[in-house]
């Protein structure tokens, strides 16, 4: 039963990676930029959730919503201020800018509130556990899984059924053709950043509730791992990011369970190297040369 317990942990962790990975992949799909500041949006989301809960005495769901909204705004600001002026610049210029934005958010947060960590209060979600087929699953895990799954389903609905979702797919496929349909490309890119960042904000709150400790540099490692998850699934492919995140979470948990917990953080990068060698387009990607 131990193994099932570990799987549940893995899926919970993986769903956090997946939520972050979605933002990486959506943004890459539309502007071909690896937004290295994305992990920091996740961190900001965790803090906004924390303050909503502790200062404003809000529950889990209101805190989640506030964090998602604030991160959506932050994502749009980052895009408009830092990336939009570089849209026709070289990729390396945009990449370096992304790293700059990342450092700015990390050290800006430290400047504003200091570097000390905070602990999410433990009583936001009642810490009960339910036994299913002899496996104890905490209500926290269930809530986290439920929330993540709901957000992913909602995202699929937005991307496939709504007008803005169709515009996002059109712009990511062919920007000029999308313009000829009358699609406002700038607004569509902003919407993509907004949605991706909102998901990262949600991941931040969920992470806080699950692991309790948050601090200003907490976005770096999960950000990198979510990036690996996005590449694992095939960068630019939404279901790929979900699968890549879940898979990575499960792999990490199994590695820990097998007694190699010190290797846990390294595993993601082993996965990255393997995927880049054997299947560079990712699990869900077609292995075709990039169009120019």
């Amino acid at each position: 039963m131990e193994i099932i317990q570990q799987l549940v942990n893995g899926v919970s962790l993986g769903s956090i990676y997946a939520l972050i990975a979605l933002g990486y992949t959506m943004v890459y799909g539309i502007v071909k930029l690896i937004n290295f500041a994305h992990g920091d949006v996740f961190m900001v989301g965790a803090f906004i959730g924390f303050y909503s809960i502790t200062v404003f005495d809000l529950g889990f769901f209101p805190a989640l919503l506030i964090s998602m909204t604030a991160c959506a705004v932050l994502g749009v600001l980052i895009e408009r201020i830092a990336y939009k002026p570089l849209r026709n610049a070289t990729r390396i210029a945009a990449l370096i800018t992304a790293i700059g934005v990342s450092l700015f958010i990390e050290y800006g947060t430290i400047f504003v509130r200091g570097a000390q960590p905070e602990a999410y209060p433990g009583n936001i979600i009642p810490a009960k556990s339910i036994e299913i087929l002899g496996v104890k699953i905490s209500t926290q895990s269930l809530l986290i899984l439920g929330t993540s799954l709901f957000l992913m389903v909602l995202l699929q609905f937005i991307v496939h059924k709504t007008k803005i979702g169709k515009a996002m797919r059109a712009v990511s496929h062919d920007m000029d053709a999308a313009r000829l349909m009358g699609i406002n490309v700038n607004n569509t890119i902003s919407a993509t950043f907004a949605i991706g960042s909102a998901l990262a904000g949600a991941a931040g709150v969920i992470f806080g509730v699950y692991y309790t400790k948050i601090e200003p540099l907490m976005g770096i490692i999960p950000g990198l791992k979510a990036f690996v998850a996005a590449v694992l699934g095939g960068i630019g492919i939404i279901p790929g990011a979900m699968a890549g995140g879940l898979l990575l979470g499960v792999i990490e948990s199994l590695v820990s369970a097998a007694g190699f917990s010190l290797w846990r953080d390294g595993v993601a990068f082993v996965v990255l190297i393997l995927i880049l060698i054997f299947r560079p387009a990712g699990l869900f990607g077609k292995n075709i040369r990039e169009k120019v």
Partner: protein
Amino acid sequence: MLKINDINVYYGNIHALKGVSLDINEGEIVTLIGANGAGKSTLLKTISGLLKPKNGDILFQGQPISGKLAQTIVKQGLSHVPEGRRVFSNMSVEENLELGAYLRKDKQGIREDFEKVYQLFPRLYERRKQLSGTLSGGEQQMLAMGRALMARPKLLLLDEPSMGLAPLLVKIIFKIIEEINQSGTTILLVEQNANMALSIAHRAYVIETGNIVLSGSSEELNQSEQIKIAYLGGH
């Protein structure tokens, strides 16, 4: 309906259109013919707002449109079917057509236009649920045209619709272009296939390295020695 006045367009320091002027009257099919690299696609992109001219002006139904956003220009009733079709191959035929009507809110009218497009291109109806990337070249051309028609354009710009198609399909496509024109849409047709283009157009312009070098009625151009030698295969 469209009046282009002495526009200059650059790519960096490449001078792609050198003082081009051109007129299209309501109801016409006007063709623009010229060799590869002459500047035909550049002109269409400038009209539809994908490129900005450095100077000169473009009037559409009396309104200046040069330098405006593509989305504004589509809304005014000018649609552009780009070279190479550029369908959204990751989406179904139906979704592509929906995107063609992106700026419209009149549900009833959109439904009517779906029907019209499917009548014009029965193949598209048969394949409406299929990913458009799986269509043949001819079907993709039909989709690109249908998608543009979904915006209910008053003026339709077509960039080399015959490119890469078998002669029989080219005939079908040109027949449909005539039908579209007869139902009230003005057309600017860019072609390298000068024979076919002159056979359906009322008037024609010839472009060479960014300059309009000749213009006139299709009959006149068909008779012109210069055109025969350069574009109609001699004799």
